[in-house]
């Protein structure tokens, strides 16, 4: 018995180590190109976001690597002109939304794929661990969409974020409430905060809670709930009980669909809904729930209806639609696109792939508003690595699609207020 157990054990260990040693390392990248490691969730519940973002990066690569003659950074000429026309290539990996895989992948991308910079990773939790590796190894990490404010508060030297974070977004909501009160001569007194309970929702709710106090609104209900719930009946009941003037939901797509339908079925009629992006700007949500969710306001860093003021938007959107099978470019991929061009532009200005030079070039980034598809004033990093030129806008669903309603000078429509009751619709 014992002998056999021993032998088995040995065989097992041989298998163990063999399996590990047997992993073939793949050839390193060639020198005449610039390689960027891209981390996104490509499987699991939010895989679509990862897929869309990678498509947006492919659009960016087209613009960089071929001569397009458009007014974007690197929009003219082939490749990176300052590096002898070197082409940019991406290595996409799936981190499955797991922080430990993000950590391991960041390390693998740097040491094995020899990437010159890292890009990603959507989930704030994964961005957190993956950027630690970059910080340690001295490789630039550009984040274009994680919205946890804490990420740029860590004192990292190699971490840069082009996107606004929850703080910026939520400030815009409260600014809107204040300005709208003045404009219409009304008064909002109470708010209810409804959030799903992952890091995104929890962060957002915390910021909103603090801001509400600062702006002088009473938070009559703070309702966190388990994301991916099978029903929102109890949550709607809570909202009805609280009867707040303004509802502030922070939800992913699935919960946003469910909230809209449940509100209709249970006849819940809030006067104003201001959502924290995510689910509310998912193109699928807009296409299918646009009518039912009529009147919902969401914060957004991007809007297709800014096309009149930003002619680049339809150009990029057409390129994106070819890759995505007809889906419009939405907020997250648009941010990924912008972040990626910022990174490529910095590498070009660095005139080398030396990490220190890229870091320095990123620090000196200053992309003017007319070269952005975002409604920002510029891309320009502060000492913490946060883009200081961000500006959030608010959009409202009117007639089944989003229209910019705030800041008032960028608005394409008047805000609809109050929302019609369900019984008076259609």
């Amino acid at each position, binding site marked *: 018995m014992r*002998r056999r157990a021993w032998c088995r054990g040995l065989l097992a260990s041989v298998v163990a180590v063999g399996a590990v040693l047997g992993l073939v390392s793949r050839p390193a990248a060639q020198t005449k190109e610039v390689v960027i490691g891209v981390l996104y969730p*490509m499987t699991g519940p939010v895989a679509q976001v990862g897929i869309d973002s990678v498509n947006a990066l492919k659009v960016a690569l087209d613009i960089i690597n071929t001569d397009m003659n458009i007014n974007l950074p690197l929009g003219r000429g082939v490749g990176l002109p300052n590096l002898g026309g070197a082409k940019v290539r991406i290595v996409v990996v799936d981190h499955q939304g797991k922080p430990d895989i993000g950590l391991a992948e960041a390390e*693998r991308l740097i040491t094995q794929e020899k990437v010159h910079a890292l890009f990603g990773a959507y989930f704030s939790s994964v961005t957190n661990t993956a950027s630690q590796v970059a910080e340690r190894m001295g490789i630039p990490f550009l984040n274009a969409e994680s919205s946890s404010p804490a990420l740029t508060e860590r004192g990292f030297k190699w971490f840069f974020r082009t996107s606004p974070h929850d703080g910026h977004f939520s400030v815009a909501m409260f600014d809107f409430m204040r300005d709208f009160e003045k404009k219409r001569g009304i008064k909002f007194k109470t708010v209810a905060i409804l959030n799903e309970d992952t890091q995104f929702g929890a962060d957002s709710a915390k910021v909103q809670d603090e801001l509400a106090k600062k702006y002088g609104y009473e938070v009559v209900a703070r309702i966190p709930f388990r994301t991916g719930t099978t029903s929102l009946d109890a949550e709607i009941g809570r909202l009805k009980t609280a009867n707040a003037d303004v509802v502030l939901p922070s939800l992913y797509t699935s919960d946003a669909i469910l909230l809209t339908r449940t509100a209709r079925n249970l006849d819940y009629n809030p006067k104003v809904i201001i959502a924290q992006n995510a689910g509310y700007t998912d193109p699928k949500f807009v296409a299918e729930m646009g009518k039912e969710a009529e009147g919902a306001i969401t914060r957004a860093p991007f809007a297709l209806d800014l096309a009149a003021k930003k002619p680049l938007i339809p150009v990029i959107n057409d390129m994106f639609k070819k890759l995505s099978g007809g889906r419009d470019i939405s907020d997250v991929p648009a941010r990924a696109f912008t972040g990626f061009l910022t990174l490529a532009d910095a590498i070009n200005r660095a005139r080398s792939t030396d990490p220190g030079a890229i870091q320095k070039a990123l620090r000196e980034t200053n992309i003017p508003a007319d070269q952005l598809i975002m409604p920002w004033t510029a891309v320009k990093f502060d000492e913490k690595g946060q883009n200081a030129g961000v500006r959030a806008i608010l959009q409202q669903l009117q007639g089944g699609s989003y229209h910019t309603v705030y800041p008032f000078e960028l608005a394409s429509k008047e805000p609809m207020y109050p929302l019609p009751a369900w019984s008076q619709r259609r």
Partner: protein
Amino acid sequence: MGTGEPVTAVKAQEGTRASVRRVWGMGLLAVMLLATLAFPWVDRLPYHRDLVIRVFLYAMLAQAWNILAGYCGQISLAYASSVLQMRWGWNPWVGLGAGIPVAVALSMAIGYPCFRLRGHYFAIATIAIGEIVQTLAINWDFIGGARGLTLPFQKDSLLAFQFHTSKYPYYYIVLALLILCLLVSWRIERTRLGYYFRAIREDPEAAQSVGIPITRYKLIAMAVSAAFVSAGGSFYAQYVLYLDPDSVLPLSLSILICLLAVVGGVGTLWGPLVGAALLIPLSEFTRIQFGGTGRAVDLLIYGALLTLVAVFQPAGLVGLLGRRGRP
């Protein structure tokens, strides 16, 4: 042929074969040990080192689960959860030390009432407890809530339990933990404790009727198991420096841990290690090869493989290796 003589001859022969095999076995084991000790110096790719660290960590967690389930026959699908989050804050070593008794106490408090339940009722009860713990953790700001805790980035030192520049110490610490866990399981397997555990697994009623105090031994198994999971959790926290309930508490993590033990071979000493050594690199490989396509090919392969193993090799892959040794 005569009767007595050949029998003794065969016995003697068997005896020699046994000792020869044992020598071989010891030799091989020593080689293996040397190979694992030398590995980080031979293969210097950090990604491989990271992979092996994770193999060892998961092998240890799976072995810990194995002590409880494999030897004792209780399936606690979700209980990794009760423990992995015990460890937020404090000096890492103090935390590791303090985490163990807390984990043990907590697991016994949960385990005691639940051991009355049988089979699937117990499994679902542990899932229910896991979900409750996760919900509490998410809504408890003291331990970071849903936003998680970022552990402070410190200079590499043994005291701070952080070694980011080389990672060699991480490798040896987790290797030591794994070896300790294997040694404990090995001791258990060949003492009266292991005998009782197996008896309880095979037939709890019969075990009780011959006077084995079932609940006490189940509690011992749970305590030993919880201690190792707690140590593993502490290691994870120091390694990743970021903890949030969605990454350390979900049901999927607990299931992954059982999965390694089951695919390798439940109730065997080497099963969890074999399972971890095969499945972790496999999932990494499929994820890297196909994960970027966004079509879940990696999980497709993983799921199919899992079903195939369960159907055609239900005793685990260790059974496949063992078959060669059988006459």
